């Protein structure tokens, strides 16, 4: 069974977007930013089940989606992405396919979440953004376990609830309802919280 159509679009879209912003997309960045996009989707009222594929942790505690990995591999094999070790760039056929998929009715608002996630690299620099995602509460509890575990399950979503509530309060207070501002703020918070905890040790 191949990757889901959502994973194929996300892989192509993220590779295209990160390549536009930073010159090439590392596979790990595609996984981490797609994970952030999924969290933004849930924050905005979406359900995990309707995202289209699932995330688990790698042995180093990073978010990973098997469907995304398969999609990247398949897109490289079919000439839609150019691959150099673990760095992907869209080819012209890949850009053409992306345009066709983007116009498809099934996608709805999906690109909005992917773009909000990728665009955090404009405000923070992509390494800072992806590094901050690693401090997401369920990833932090999984750090050091050295075994794979599912992400955004019931326990993971419960850990996110107070974060979402806080972000909505700030968004109302500051009149900043857009996803980009919310994503950047949350990542800054995650890093600040991690920095505080590391000095408390």
């Amino acid at each position, binding site marked *: 069974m191949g990757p889901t159509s959502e994973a194929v679009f996300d892989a192509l879209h993220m590779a295209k977007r990160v390549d536009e*912003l930073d010159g090439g997309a*590392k596979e790990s960045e595609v996984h981490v930013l797609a994970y952030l996009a999924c969290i933004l989707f849930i924050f905005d009222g979406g359900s995990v089940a309707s995202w289209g594929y699932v995330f688990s942790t790698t042995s180093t505690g990073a978010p990973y989606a098997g469907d995304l990995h398969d999609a990247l591999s398949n897109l490289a094999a079919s000439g839609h992405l150019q691959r150099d070790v673990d760095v992907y760039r869209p080819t012209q056929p890949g850009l053409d396919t992306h345009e066709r998929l983007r116009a498809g009715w099934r996608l709805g608002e999906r690109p909005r979440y992917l773009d909000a996630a990728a*665009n955090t690299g404009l405000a923070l620099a992509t*390494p800072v953004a*992806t590094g901050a995602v*690693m401090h997401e509460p369920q990833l932090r509890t999984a750090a050091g376990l050295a075994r794979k575990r599912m992400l955004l399950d019931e326990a993971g979503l419960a850990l996110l609830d107070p974060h979402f509530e806080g972000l909505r309060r700030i968004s109302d207070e500051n009149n900043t309802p857009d996803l*980009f*501002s919310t994503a950047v703020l949350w990542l800054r918070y995650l890093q600040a919280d991690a920095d505080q905890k590391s000095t408390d040790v």
Partner: protein
Amino acid sequence: MFSFELLQEVAEHDWIQTIQSGTHGGEESLPPLLEFVRSVFDHVAPERLTGGLTLLASSNFPDALGDADHTLAQLAELADLPFLHPQHLVLVAREQGDYLVWNTQPDDAVLTAHTLVYRFDGSDHFMLPDLTVSLPEIPGFGSIFSIPTFMTLDEALLDYERTHVRHSGCPLLAANWDDDDRIVLANKPESSMRRSLEQYLRAALRGYGLIELRPEQNVDESHPIDIKVTWSVTNRIALIEIKWIGQSINPEKTATTNWKDPRANSGAKQLSDYLDSNKEYTPSHHVVGYLVVFDARRAGASAENRELSDEEALQYLAVEINYEPKYEELRPDFAPPVRLFMRPKTQVA
């Protein structure tokens, strides 16, 4: 546990929040403007824009700027930008995909009434009708939007030397000297060097999963490695051992600790031994060891003597460290050692 107080504190200092709350319905214009800024600085270094720069978020700009007398150029590509005369430049990206450029200093009140504006005058600002948001300066870089990122650790270390170490551009390294001319290092400079490199890698190295810094309390010779970088998808690990050579003052300011080549060689052996002992714990990972040596050697420097000629201060600028054995020739998991020469302040640039 989530802290709303911390979130509020972060939001208060978040320039994105400040700009977006002031745009009153123009929230969607910020990401494209940020991307425009980045694109401009991809083609011309901010330090070259001596006359300053103004970028407009949209083509909704006042007609006054369309005055043909002030139009400098119509660019098909930003790659043509570096060839323009170094005066104040105003750019807007048109829907057609090209760019219009003017060389007049605009009326900011008129501009901001129409669109979100970015201004560079040596530092970064965003301008709204009743508010100018100034961004923090990043030492070593002309603009917060011109900080490069790197796919590999080797590339990142090259840039780190140039931007952070060479002239002590990093504040942590700048504060690590016992004198203003950067002749003798402060007492126990290792901690600042570790933190400087760790902070830099977090901002500049793409695709890492974890960057771990050795805890301060591990000070014996059997300590774990100084910085460990783990990549999540490719199963690669970099173990970075940091050493410094040169002179460091003692707490009483009466004498210096002097390290030269033997110290660097000791670090190389330490790293080689650690690579051997670490193999059983990471059998499924590709591990490479990096020895990074901060070189602050000065000829004739001591606790009492900081008055060196330029020749003495720079004597070791091009003097490589003599390693024996050369582990990088003996084992494939040992990268060529990296020497970061920390320049003194001299009359010679």
